[in-house]
């Protein structure tokens, strides 16, 4: 294996995302976190596998379901949680909340809460990289619901037409809120839509972090080599409700339970244990490390401060930012 640390790293990353979000759900119940909260639980292998293949300098554009992406990029958990608390120590100063995590250091360009809204932005970031002649890649994540938006098709076409270094990552979790894919699309093979724009497009098991990582590695290498945009359809499932306001009238418990058997963390851990790559003791150690990090994140968010109200209009124009 090229990278002997990778399995443990991927496993720990997924565990971190899972436990972090379980904590978020708890904190939402006690109203520490407000507004919309969209959990990624069940989909961890996608962000983990893709982002693990990116390098410093690459950019990521995500949706409102982006805690996992921020964590995988290495954004500090405490600063993510502080954002959800609305604290000034949050990644976006408490201005954004759960749906709008931004981080210049890791080049995370949101956290966009308009379905499809991030796609054209990713195309533009990639255009800038191409014009500047560097070999950076922009990875953009969006749900399969976004495939119905005009912005999806416009962005795919532009990226292909201009051979831009974009990795399109469609997180197909089968539902856009309550609308199942088969009620939104006649052609449910999303990769065929990408093929129509003449870009390589692969269906990937989004519950298998190694499969995700391998596909992403291949795509990113090819993009960096100048082959233009690539498209991954990552087949996954959201174990929780769409947001905290969703009574889940549109799907059966049975279906959810069936998918839970393919839990990306459980299956990976079982495989690693069977192959004696990560022992159960080591897994327990991972859980313990993660628990410590999460406790620290909660403490950080709790200790955070509220931005003074007299700064309300501070981030409207750039000249006021430095104030």
């Amino acid at each position, binding site marked *: 294996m090229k990278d002997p640390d990778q399995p443990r790293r991927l496993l720990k990353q997924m565990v971190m995302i899972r436990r972090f979000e379980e904590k978020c759900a708890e904190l939402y119940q006690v109203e520490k976190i*407000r*507004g*919309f909260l969209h959990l990624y639980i069940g989909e961890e292998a996608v962000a983990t596998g893709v982002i693990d293949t990116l390098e410093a300098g690459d950019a990521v554009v995500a949706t409102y379901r982006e805690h996992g992406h921020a964590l995988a990029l290495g954004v500090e958990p405490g600063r993510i949680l502080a*954002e959800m608390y*609305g*604290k000034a120590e949050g990644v*976006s100063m*408490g*201005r*954004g*909340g759960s*749906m*709008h995590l931004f981080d210049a250091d890791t080049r995370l360009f949101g956290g*966009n*809460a*308009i*379905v*499809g*809204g991030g796609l054209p932005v990713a195309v533009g970031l990639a255009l800038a990289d191409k014009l500047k002649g560097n070999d950076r890649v922009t990875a953009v994540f969006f749900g399969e*619901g*976004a495939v*119905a*938006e*005009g*912005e999806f098709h416009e962005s795919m076409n532009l990226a292909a037409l201009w051979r831009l270094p974009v990795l399109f990552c469609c997180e197909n979790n089968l539902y*856009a*809120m*309550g*609308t199942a894919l088969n*009620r*939104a*699309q006649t052609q449910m093979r999303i990769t065929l839509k990408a093929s129509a724009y003449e870009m390589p497009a692969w269906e990937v098991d989004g519950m298998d972090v190694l499969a995700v990582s391998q596909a992403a590695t291949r795509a990113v290498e090819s993009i960096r080599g100048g082959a233009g945009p690539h498209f991954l359809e990552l087949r996954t499932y959201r174990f929780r409700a769409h947001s905290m306001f*969703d*009574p889940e*009238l*549109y799907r059966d418990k049975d279906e959810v339970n069936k998918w839970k058997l393919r839990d990306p963390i459980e299956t990976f851990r079982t495989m690693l244990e069977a192959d004696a790559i990560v022992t159960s003791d080591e897994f327990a150690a991972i859980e313990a490390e993660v628990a410590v990090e999460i406790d620290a994140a909660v403490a950080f968010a709790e200790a955070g401060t*509220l*931005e003074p*109200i007299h700064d*309300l*209009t501070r*981030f*409207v124009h750039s000249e006021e930012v430095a104030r």
Partner: protein
Amino acid sequence: MTVTEPRHATVTMTYREAVREGIRDAIASDDRVFLMGEDVGRYGGCYAVSKGLFDEFGDERIRDTPLSESGFVGAGIGAALGGMRPIVEVMTVNFALLALDQIVNTAALYLHMSGGQFNVPIVIRMVTGAGRQLGAQHSHSLEGWFAHVPGLKVVAPATIEDARWMLASALVDPDPVIIFEHAALYGSSGEVSADSGPVDINSARIRRRGDDVSIITHGGSLAKALTAADELDALGISTEVLDLRSLRPLDTAAILDTVAHTHRLVIVDEGWKSVGLSAEILARVSEDALWELDAPVMRVCAVEVPIPYAMHMEQAALPQVADIVAAVHKVLDR
């Protein structure tokens, strides 16, 4: 004193139920009417407005759409041109920005560009407003933008009765009508007279009579204005509250009348001040009732900043009862 005091038996319902009843009625009574939008069916509506209607009427008349705002609003326009009476729900005004082209370039213009041949009898409903910590992309109050456009009618039901009955009148209208429902109102409840029926959708209404000062407002801000009026009443200040109801056309006569009655004016709007609805009201007052005013007009609007997530910041950005009370004191100089 409220002007619309129920005379007969009344029914108590929430704003959400009132909107749902309005939709149910419209669909049951006219084969041409159907509801279409994202998650209106199986999910029950993102604000649970259409909950239950899917089971009652089926998927043709409660039609779920993919995430294609421009596409399905355009399709609604086409269906209206083709003889149907669609009610198109755009989840929120924030996402209506993806359909702005169809609303402004198609719905609003076809009657005119066709020399009067093609009217577009579509009703578009959408949620507006902030206050629930949903962040800047989910907290717009852009009804003033739509009210800018000739060819559209724009209404904002602020009471249970209007929530219940404006839709019926909008569906009778031969031209596009946009209904803005403020997110904070859905849970509010009140009484509607059991024998109430379709309401006029072109005029403003006085919701509270008063003599010292007028507050003009609409939608989600009406309740705040009425609360402020109660507080002011306790201080011996008699406040008149005018609910615009229709943002296009604006009921200029009602605006001028209340100014002529109290001679002092505060305008409350959750939208931004600059180039907005409040500016238009003020312009009309200064064009036609300037000499009626005994004091400069005050506006209580959202602070000119995208609506922040953090609760204290969001609340600071939005018009509050205390701001309205303070503005009234200022125009009264007491």
